[in-house]
């Protein structure tokens, strides 16, 4: 296992895309904190950028990387290596390198400019979001055989989670405004890892005005401490379940 993970990580470090991604994140974060005097405002701006870019890069880059590793996967499957080991090593290798890019790009300026507790929770949320979207990319790759189809599915999934989901929630709210659907909305919010991540950070920042409708209901219902706990738990599920499903599919896949 370790040998395979090492191989994937080394291969990623040589990859220029991941360097470019680190640089992009660094430029964003340094300029955000350079422009804003208020650290909380800076964190909020950064949060919004982060929740848009990190999922996009994680999902697209991982999808392309997995498809480009098809030769590697083919070769390994005919060797005495367990299938689940190959898939898991790819996942862990990709996660390590994406997290490294995120910590170097966003983590350093955060630690310098933001209060330490907020910086740390931002970093951990960023890492979880990266892992979640890598896991979703693995699922997209396990479902589709064709490279272009797989990338298409990944882009659609990102669009859905980053943009469409909010629209759907608003639509539901307006349509059913006359009914008591608050508690149902809490359940629905859990269907979007990006919303969960946002709520988790905003709970730490104590800026309830920015939580939005679902966030406000969420905080009201659970309170800050349990809310933090539950949103972290749901985020972990979002990373584990798609990867587990993809692993089961990969174990049965014909190569």
């Amino acid at each position: 296992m370790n040998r395979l993970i090492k191989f994937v990580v080394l291969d990623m470090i040589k990859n220029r895309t991941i360097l470019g991604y680190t640089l992009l994140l660094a430029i964003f974060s340094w300029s955000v904190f350079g422009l804003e005097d208020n650290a909380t405002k800076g964190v909020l701006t950064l949060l919004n950028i982060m929740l848009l870019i990190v999922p996009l890069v994680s999902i697209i880059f991982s999808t392309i990387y997995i498809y480009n590793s098809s030769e590697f996967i083919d070769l390994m499957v005919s060797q005495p290596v367990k299938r689940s080991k190959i898939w898991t090593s790819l996942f862990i290798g990709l996660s390590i390198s994406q997290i490294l890019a995120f910590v170097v790009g966003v983590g350093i300026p955060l630690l310098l400019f933001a209060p330490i507790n907020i910086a740390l929770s931002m970093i951990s949320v960023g890492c979880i979001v990266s892992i979640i979207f890598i896991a979703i990319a693995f699922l997209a790759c396990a479902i589709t055989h064709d490279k272009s189809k797989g990338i298409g599915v990944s882009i659609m999934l990102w669009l859905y989670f980053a943009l469409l989901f909010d629209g759907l929630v608003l639509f539901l709210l307006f349509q059913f405004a006359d009914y008591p659907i608050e508690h149902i909305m809490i359940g629905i919010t859990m269907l979007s890892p990006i919303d969960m991540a946002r709520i988790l950070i905003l709970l730490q920042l104590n800026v309830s005005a920015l939580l939005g409708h679902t966030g406000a209901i969420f905080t009201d219902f659970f309170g800050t401490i349990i809310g933090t706990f539950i949103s972290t738990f749901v985020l972990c599920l979002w990373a584990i379940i798609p990867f587990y499903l993809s692993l089961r599919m990969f174990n049965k896949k014909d190569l």
Partner: protein
Amino acid sequence: MIAIQNISKKFGKLTVLDGSSAQFNKGECIALIGPNGCGKTTLIKSILGMVVPNTGNILFNDVSIKNEFLYRNNIGYMPQIGRYPENMSIGQVIDMIKNIRNYNSQLDEELLDLYKIKDLLNKKMRTLSGGTTQKISATIAFLFNPDVLILDEPTAGLDPLAAEILKEKIIKEKQKGKLIIITSHLLSELDELVTQVVFMQDGKIKFHKNTEELKNDTQMPTIAKAITHILKATAHE
């Protein structure tokens, strides 16, 4: 050594393997023959666990290979079209496989020397010609002294000299008592090599015979002629 029990495989609606059974033993050299698309490669890939059959069982040394992987330590596989990570060099690929196999005994580097691969170690996989890629595949298949060699169209794309080297090597390994499974369309090459012939058609194993038996039945002097005779007969049906 390898027992195939009634395996079937469908890709979508297409039935590729249709209830095939066979038994391959130590010391045999088996030619897997049949028209294009008759399921030869799928059968081989099922033995390797790259394709998972819908029904049926494959036993390796009396143990089912389902969800197993260690049995592949005993198999050297040369694919029909070798696919390797493009941005790796030959040396890196070989090192990686050595690393993963974690093989402690003496490596069999005969082909590595005969094909002069040591001079090419720094070349990237994407720059290689089809023939050179085949040489790499062959080298890797023989490198770890496996008990079973599975060679899918081994000589396709090799120049005559390289093909001859490979043939010599196969004969040498056969004499060591290994099980060798070959698919090939170049029937004339098989004469010196094989002891048994498995003929496949439409995903079924039509027959599994000794070469002597096959020659007697068809009254032909060589395997090549016997097989062409059978192919012509089935084409007329």
